[in-house]
């Protein structure tokens, strides 16, 4: 009990410090934190569904992009909170549809389907804009400073991790784990596969949509090709896998080293970024097969053992 209380206090303190970050971080540091929080949200939300079910989804950017695009469309006509509500509704609606449609798909079929989905959404939006509205390329002029966006993303990341924590405590979390292990057993144990999977998918997608919506004012100009950049999906997967997709804090812990690595590489080797990045990736796969979190845990366990000895 006291441990839980202590833990809760630690979390709150951590949040408070993070919330004060704009006071002592410069514009650059804050920009870095914005990306960090955005990816923490995306990776955690991704792992919420994909971690336990092992459905590797590349649709992240479909939802992220929808969030951003919705803001681009409505930012001049609707008050900001309503824009967010519209965004989340569209994201959730699409996720529900996709969730039900893909229930029969597993493994790599789902992977590529989800990739195709992101591309399809992008193509359809493009077509719609070209043929119906005649505007391709929209502007977002919202009066947000970096710190405003940072605070929103921090809150979203906290909420996302909170939801992840909550799911773990509930039967929903258990159900997902079973589904990931063996769907047939899950069904015969009384787990409603479709409802569980779709619920989680929608939840995860809604969070991603929000992340895109909140971050978009940073880019001013929005075009489908910009916001539906598949790199975002790939990075999300990689960060989550790197950290450990089945753990609550895994994805977040995958984001941090990668973000730092990117930052360092793009500054130190602007011309050879790709090569170093690729090499790092391969090294990571070989050296940290089970993700950062479990590597850290093993290391800690060993230290503890040595201390005890």
């Amino acid at each position, binding site marked *: 009990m006291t441990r839980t209380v202590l833990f809760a206090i630690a979390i709150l303190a951590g949040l408070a410090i993070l919330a004060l970050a704009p006071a002592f971080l410069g514009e650059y540091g804050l920009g870095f934190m914005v990306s960090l929080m955005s990816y923490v949200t995306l990776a955690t939300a991704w792992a919420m569904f994909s971690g336990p079910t092992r459905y590797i989804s590349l649709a992240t950017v479909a939802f992220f992009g929808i969030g951003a695009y919705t803001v681009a469309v409505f930012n001049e006509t609707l008050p900001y909170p309503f824009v967010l509500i519209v965004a989340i509704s569209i994201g959730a609606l699409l996720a529900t549809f996709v969730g039900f449609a893909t229930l029969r798909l597993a493994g*790599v079929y789902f992977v590529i389907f989800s990739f195709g989905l992101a591309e399809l959404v992008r193509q359809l939006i*493009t077509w719609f804009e070209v043929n119906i509205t005649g505007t391709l390329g929209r502007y977002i002029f919202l009066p947000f400073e970096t710190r405003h966006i940072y605070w929103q993303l921090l809150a979203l990341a906290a909420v996302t991790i909170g939801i992840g924590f909550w799911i773990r405590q509930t039967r929903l979390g258990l159900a997902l784990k079973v589904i990931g292990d063996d769907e047939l057993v899950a069904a015969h144990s009384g787990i409603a596969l479709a409802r569980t999977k779709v619920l989680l998918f929608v939840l995860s997608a809604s969070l991603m949509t929000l992340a895109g919506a909140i971050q978009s004012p940073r880019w001013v100009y929005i075009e489908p090709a910009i916001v539906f950049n598949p790199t975002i999906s790939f990075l999300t997967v990689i960060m989550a896998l790197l950290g450990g997709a089945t753990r609550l804090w895994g994805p977040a812990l995958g984001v941090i080293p990668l973000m730092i690595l990117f930052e360092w590489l793009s500054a130190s080797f602007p011309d050879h970024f790709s090569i170093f990045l690729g090499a790092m990736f391969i090294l990571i796969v070989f050296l940290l097969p089970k993700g950062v979190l479990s590597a850290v845990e093993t290391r800690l366990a060993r230290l503890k053992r040595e201390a005890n000895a």
Partner: protein
Amino acid sequence: MLISTLMFGLVLGGTYALVALGLSMQYGISRIMNLAHGEFMIAAAFCAYVLFDFAGLSPLVTLLIAPLIGFGLSWLIYTVMMHPLVKRAANRGQLEADSILATFGLLFILQGIMLVVFGSDFTSYSYLNIPIDIFGVTIAVSRVVAFGLSLFLGLVLYVLITRSRWGATLRAVALSPASAPLVGIQVDKVARQAFAIGGALAASGGVLVSMFVTFSATGGVVFTMKALIVVIMGGVGNLLGALIAGLALGVIETFVTSYFDPGLSLASTYLLFIIVLLWRPQGLFGSVRS
């Protein structure tokens, strides 16, 4: 009009199939989802370009050399990079995740090297970009060659894989790598072979495509994605499926362009892909089985 649309579509589809064959081998048999597939093709394309532009070597000659290099290189990559992952993986999901990560790294390395060596410019040369009349439809010879070759390679490999004993061992490794040793199959060797053949196919695809497509060091992803879609649509490891799916995509895309709206051509391929998957979750023709 109908004829020309169909012809254009088939020829385009031939390119798609060509792009997908190698990946189908690598993913279907060796179980390595090679995200660097497109980079391999681009590398082969650059190879063809350099030999053509500076040594005057016909890409059709390169077509004999590049696959050998692709084979050797892929062999090496499998041995050095993939094999440890395969050995380490406790299950298929683990291998899938690991190979996605590792080949994603490979993608960046290859892309980075090509950026340094060739720069980021668009590259293109013209070879066999001459018209030929087939059923009254004018098509570039280069595309016809690519179409013919993809048809040939796809069918030959399909027959080999479904009809020969060697093919049966390939499929056995693809389907149940744990059981294959029981019948004396050296899983590691077969998987490496398939991966290397996939590399050779990617290289030939790259050389052929370079004759009519403008490419750049960063353009590999496009190929990989098209290839993945075709492979999945046709059924993992099913080369005939890949061939047919590739052709189908090409035809649909062209029909939408001509009769409906070019703006929806790419959307239609994704839509078709998604519909196929929902209708037949294991791909049009199922996986490697005959």
